[in-house]
């Protein structure tokens, strides 16, 4: 199955009711599919099915009138689409994983 690199970013209005709780739940879903590369930015390598699943879970959490969620598909993979400067906490999970 083909996998795609996606970029997920979000703003959750933490001053609104339950804002902190929503923020934590959004982060938790994102962590299950990928990795945090900046405070509210995740990179995930997922199948189409996993992407749909993840999106559906996130849509159940956020409040559309208060929060914002953006999912970018990195066509051709992050290697082609991304230039990173400064701190980089990304791990390629397809590389040999030896701890």
């Amino acid at each position, binding site marked *: 199955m083909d996998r795609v690199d996606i970029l997920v970013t979000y703003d959750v209005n933490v001053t609104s009711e339950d804002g902190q709780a929503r923020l934590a739940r959004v982060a938790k879903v994102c*962590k*299950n599919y990928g*990795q945090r590369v900046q405070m509210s930015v995740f990179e995930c*390598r997922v199948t189409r099915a996993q992407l749909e699943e993840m999106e559906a879970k996130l849509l159940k959490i956020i409040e559309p009138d208060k929060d914002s969620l953006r999912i970018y598909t990195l066509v051709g993979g992050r290697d082609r689409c991304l230039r990173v400067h400064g701190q980089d906490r990304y791990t390629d999970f*397809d590389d*040999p994983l030896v*701890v």
Partner: protein
Amino acid sequence: MTGELLNTLYVQTQGVYLRLEGDTLRIQHEDVTLRNVPLHHLGGVAVFGNVLISPFLLHRCAEEGLEVAWFSESGRFQGRLSGPVSGNVLLRRAQHKALDNPSQTLYLAGRFVEAKLKNSRLVLQRAVRERGETEALALAIAEHEAALRMLPQARSVDEVRGLEGQAASAYFAAFGDLLLSGEFRFDGRNKRPPRDPVNALLGYIYALLVTQCTAALEGVGLDPQMGFLHALRPGRNALALDLMEEFRAWWADRLALSLLNRKQLTPKHFEERPGGAVLLDEEGRKAVIVAFQSRRQETVQHPLFKEPVPVGLLPHVQARLLARYLRGDLPEYAPFVGR
């Protein structure tokens, strides 16, 4: 056809703790998180020595069919997580029937050995092409050719084993000539424990490879213990060892040679233990695992399918072909022969 090649997580840092955190695997050392890996990236987890795994993570791995295997710190296979029995009972029954059928057992044993002989010969011939002939190399190639000629006439599995044994001893008599660096010597195969660096390295890579073969067989629902060439023995994954014969020279031995000849491993990566055992040290083991994993991700043209297959999926492809042969969907089993 080939499916997805999921990564294996190798944990060899002593004293770490693996736990389940949502749908991710968290690697902790004392209170520090070393890494989080989403489970959907993983096809298996291999742990070496003193590494703890939480019960919930184990349950989840069993549930999702993630292969978990335990090795000693030095790389000796210790055990494996086995989830609920799955796969096709009819397939396993076909496998048992084939083992009770002497002509089918002989046929399969012969195919595994044929592949082993061809792939070993390939390694020897490549050395001759690249560096010229030595006496031992010429002899070993001749032994392989003789064995390949006699193989179709073998009347019993014991005869097949005899041919294999003869060729293997010539192969290992010549193996020292394949080492370029003067820092390593090889005077024949020894194990349990290995008594020199080259044997330590071979043993370590074979341990990694047999786990891959076991996982591949289980993946298609075959019983990895029920082998045709290797004698049945409690606790021995005879069929995984059978399947591994196709890959020993082509994958494991060549990887060992390239690690040594490119000086990615040097004598300082090996340590001698009391009693004369020689083992890879932590840094050496890491280098081997990284090279092994990178090799898994390279693709090769499968001789049967005209499409590129990642090396790591070859055992799975072969396991599937074997299952189809046992079921009667294929009239022949075609073992993997590299180029």
